[in-house]
Structure formats: structure tokens, C-alpha cells
């Protein structure tokens, strides 16, 4: 039996392996062109001064030093972190509440789900412009604009992101809520647990995996945000700042990390490209670190459960 099994496996495996140029090569070649090579070159260039990829000159850690001394970069990092955290909380609380309500056997659940998910299909650039016109329509009554105040830009983007992401997270939460074992809810009901007690002691522990996924998803989404940021405010308003050590800088007060990197690459003249690539590597380490933490958190839960 076992030998037969192995024979069957070899029968399948050997011919497949021989046809690797057909099965594996196209994807592998594209993967090298579209990912591996640009990635490695990106790391190499972050240690170089360059204006284009074939005039790179090794400068060591200078780019990284410039990156962390860049006031705009540090500002955009803090701004992004704040935005990611606030949006994480707001989006997840709203999404969970909606998902919970929609799984309570009320009428029209299907329609509501359709409506709430819909904004996910509209791209970030288009979303940004729709909302910039809406916000300006409201703010014009107060003789101002979303481009004039940092907090308008912040809360505007928060509203936009909620509008887009609540439906997405809701889908994941609904899937989680539907998987809560019915007999556990039944048992809680028989024991006379209140709605709130059931929610806290039975439902939430059971949807913990969904909560972990959604938390990290909204966190990394917040950090990687680009299109919506570019289209809604593009970093405006700009403020000129003088620091305690006497240095001065113009800060784009609603510019997030991804947009800051983009602007360093393409907006500041080609001399800043080394710094931009170093920023991109730092950004990559940050996002990859978050994803790794997510992986560990989900794995940990699975083992614990």
C-alpha cells in the first residue's frame, strides 16, 4: 500500500517537475522582474547617492542619517501613527457594532450589508475627490476649506476611511460572529446571562481571531495609506516651523509616511533620492514588523484556543 502510494506520487511528481519551464518559469521570471530585483536594488540604493539607477555612488549610512534628521519625515511618522491608531479604534468599534446588530436576525440585513460594503469598490483617488468636494461644500458655509486646517484634514480623512473600511471589517466580523457556536449562546441564555454578559463572556472571546485580523489590517492600512491622502488634502496646509535648536522647516501638516516618501522621491529634485530610498526602507521595516507581529498574534491565539 505504502509503496503504491509512493509510486503514484512519483508518477505525478516527476512529469510535473520536468515541465517546470511551463508551470513555474513565467511566474518566477515576472516575480524576479517585478519584485525581487527592484527590492534588492532598493536596499542597495538606500546606501548610495543617485539620481537614476545607473549612477549610484556608495555613501554608507548617510541617507539614513538624513532621513531621521528630516523634520518632515519625523512629523509624518508621528502623524501617521496617530492617524493609524485613532482610525483603528474608531473603525473597529463601528464595524463590530454594525456586524453585531446585523447578525441579530433583523429585517433587511442583506441590503444593509450591500450598502455598507459598497464604498470598498471605489478607488482611493476617486474617493478622495468625492469627499474633498463634500467637505468643502460644508466648510464653505464657515468660509474655510479642508485645505486650510490640519484638524479638518485629519478628521476628514478619518471620516473617509471609516466610510470605506467599516463595511470591509464588518464582513470579517460577520463571518466571525456567525461561527460562534449556537450551543454556547443557548447555554448562556439558559443560565440567565444578560445580553451584555453574553456579549462579553461568550461572543467576544469567540470572535477574538476576527478581532486580531481586523485590528492589524486597519493598522497596516493606516500606515500604508496613500491614494486617499494624496487626493483629499495632498499634505495641505503647509506650515513654516522654527525649532528649539534654531533649525527651520516647512511641514506639510497632513502628509502621511507614504506620501512623504513619494514627495521626497519626485517632488524635491533628484538629489534627495538617496534619502527617499532610505526612508522607504525604514517604512518597509515598520510595515513588515507590524505584519510579523500580526502573524505572531494570530498564531498565538490559534494555539491558545
Amino acid at each position: 500500500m505504502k509503496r503504491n502510494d509512493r509510486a503514484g506520487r512519483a508518477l505525478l511528481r516527476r512529469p510535473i517537475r520536468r515541465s517546470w519551464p511551463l508551470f513555474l518559469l513565467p511566474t518566477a521570471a515576472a516575480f524576479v522582474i517585478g519584485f525581487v530585483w527592484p527590492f534588492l536594488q532598493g536596499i542597495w540604493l538606500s546606501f548610495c547617492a543617485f539620481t537614476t539607477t545607473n549612477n549610484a555612488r556608495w555613501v554608507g549610512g548617510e541617507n539614513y542619517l538624513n532621513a531621521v534628521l528630516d523634520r518632515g519625515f519625523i512629523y509624518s511618522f508621528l502623524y501617521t501613527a496617530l492617524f493609524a491608531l485613532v482610525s483603528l479604534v474608531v473603525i473597529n468599534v463601528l464595524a463590530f457594532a454594525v456586524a453585531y446588530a446585523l447578525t441579530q436576525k433583523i429585517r433587511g440585513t442583506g441590503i444593509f450589508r450591500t450598502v455598507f460594503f459598497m464604498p470598498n469598490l471605489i478607488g482611493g483617488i476617486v474617493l478622495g475627490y468625492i469627499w474633498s468636494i463634500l467637505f468643502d461644500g460644508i466648510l464653505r458655509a464657515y468660509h474655510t476649506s479642508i485645505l486650510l486646517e490640519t484638524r479638518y484634514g485629519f478628521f476628514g480623512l478619518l471620516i473617509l476611511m471609516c466610510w470605506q473600511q467599516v463595511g470591509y471589517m464588518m464582513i470579517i466580523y460577520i463571518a466571525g460572529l456567525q461561527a460562534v457556536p449556537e450551543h454556547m449562546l443557548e447555554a448562556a441564555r439558559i443560565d440567565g446571562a444578560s445580553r451584555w454578559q453574553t456579549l462579553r463572556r461568550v461572543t467576544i472571546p469567540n470572535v477574538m481571531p476576527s478581532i486580531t485580523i481586523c485590528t492589524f489590517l486597519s493598522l497596516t492600512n493606516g500606515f500604508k495609506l496613500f491614494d486617499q491622502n494624496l487626493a483629499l488634502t495632498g499634505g495641505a496646509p503647509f506650515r513654516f516651523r522654527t525649532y528649539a535648536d534654531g533649525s527651520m522647516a516647512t511641514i506639510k501638516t497632513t502628509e502621511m509616511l507614504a506620501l512623504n516618501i513619494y514627495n521626497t522621491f519626485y517632488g524635491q529634485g533628484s538629489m534627495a533620492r538617496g534619502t527617499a530610498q532610505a526612508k522607504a526602507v525604514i517604512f518597509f521595516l515598520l510595515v513588515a514588523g507590524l505584519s510579523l507581529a500580526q502573524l505572531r498574534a494570530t498564531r498565538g491565539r490559534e494555539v491558545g484556543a
Partner: protein
Amino acid sequence: MRGSRRPRRRGRALTAVFGIISVIYVLPVVMVLINAFKVNSFVKTETFALPDRESFVGFENFIKGMTFGNYPFFRSVFYSVVITLLSTALILLCTSMAAWYIARVNDRACRVFYTLCVFSMVVPFQMVMFTLSKTADTVRLLGFWGPKLNTPWTIPIIYLGFGAGLAIFMFTGFVKSIPREVEEAAAIDGCGPIRTYFRVVFPMLRPTMISVGILEIMWIWNDYLLPYLVLDRNEYMTIPIHIQYLQGSYGAVDLGATMALILLSIIPVIVFYLLCQKHIIKGVAAGAVKG
């Protein structure tokens, strides 16, 4: 259901509350619709008013929007469609084949490739955007011969490379879950790998194909930065690039016409969504749980 009266009343109240929230939720899209038919100046001053005799312009905005900015809008639509369909088809075909190879051969090279693919999923685009766009400007389709990779017809290769991670991950996971006995039987009956794949494996992959396809379509159709940096900007635009270009390059842009274009670009998306809603939601949930 024979529930007591109170929960039923609560249910009705919830339905009413969500009904109101849903109406508010679609308002932004309704606003686009309303403003697409207004004169430019009224879009700014009376954003929330319905078009009246003074502000209504009929389809003038659409006609104006199609042509202004010296790049016809329908060309952008055409390239968006070409890029999205070609890239998605290429990704589905190539990565599913590669995933089958990885799952069935499973030697060290496969494991290394698979690990790299998973790794690529956590790399943000900004990390590779500069080098990737330079690569696309220099590499040709067949190494040193053929068209460069910066056209709508060849950009699918870039999408295949940069987007391989998620697709390989999802397909490999699925292939590992299907028993290999069927394929072995096909092999015993004399099917080569190509026939085994297309006759036996491919049909079984259908549900995952739909999920992956939907994720790729949503990503590529809405993608802005990658095509903006990779494509030759004077020749080719996609819908997001076109809209960003109109907004970005003209200070006093015609808002009415922009609204008309935005409306034109979201109508197909909403129709597509309403038609295959179930698949879309399922696909997104599947992708999220793994990503």
C-alpha cells in the same frame, strides 16, 4: 420565529435605524450624481442643492469631461479595461499553474520561492516604486528584444510579478487541501502534466479563481501609483490617473465635468458589484483572513 414581543419591536427599531444610516451612507454617491448635472460654479457654492432651472446643464458636463485636458477620457477607460483584464487573466493562469507545481513538487526551490512570495506580501509599494519603474523602463518583453514593460500591453507582467504573492499564497493553500488521488489516477491513465492540470486541477480551482480574480480586479482597476509611475505618461493613462491629472494640474478645474467623469467611472464598478456581490464579499473575506 415565535419571539416575544419586545425583541421583535427592537428588531424593527434597528431596521429603521439602519435604514436611515444606509441612506446617509449612499449620500456621497448621490451627491456625485446630482453634481454631475450642475454648472461648474454651482458645484462649489451649492454642493448639496438639487439642480434647479438655473444650475441644471443636462449632459453638457459629460461632453465637456470627455474631451478636456487634451486627453480623451475614453482612452483612459480603454486602457483601464485592457490593463485590468489582461493582468487578472495572466495572474490567474500563471500563478495557479505555479501554485500547483509548488504544492505537488514541493522541493527546496519551491519552498524558497513560496517563502519569498509570502514575504512580498508585507512589502509596501513605496519600497520598490522607484526601482520598479526604472526596471520597467529598461527591461523588454523577451529580455533585450520586444516592447518595453511600460505599456498597457506589457504592464500585466509587472502586475504578475508584484502581485504574485497573494495569488500564490491562496492557490497553494487550496491545492494542498485537495487530495492528489484524482490527479494520480489521471497520470496513471496516461495524462501528461498539462492535460492533468487543465482537465483535472483547473476545474477544481474555480472557487479560489473567483476569489483571487475579484481581489486582483479590485486592486488593479483602482490602482493609481503603480501605473502612474510605470506607464509612459504622455501616451497612456488609466481612470485614476486621469482624474488625479485633471485635479492636480489645473487649479481652477471644472468641477461639474470632473463629477461627470467620476460618475462615469463608478457606474460600471457599482453595476459589477451588484451583479456579483456574493462572490465579491466571499472573495474579500477569504483574502483578508489570509492576508
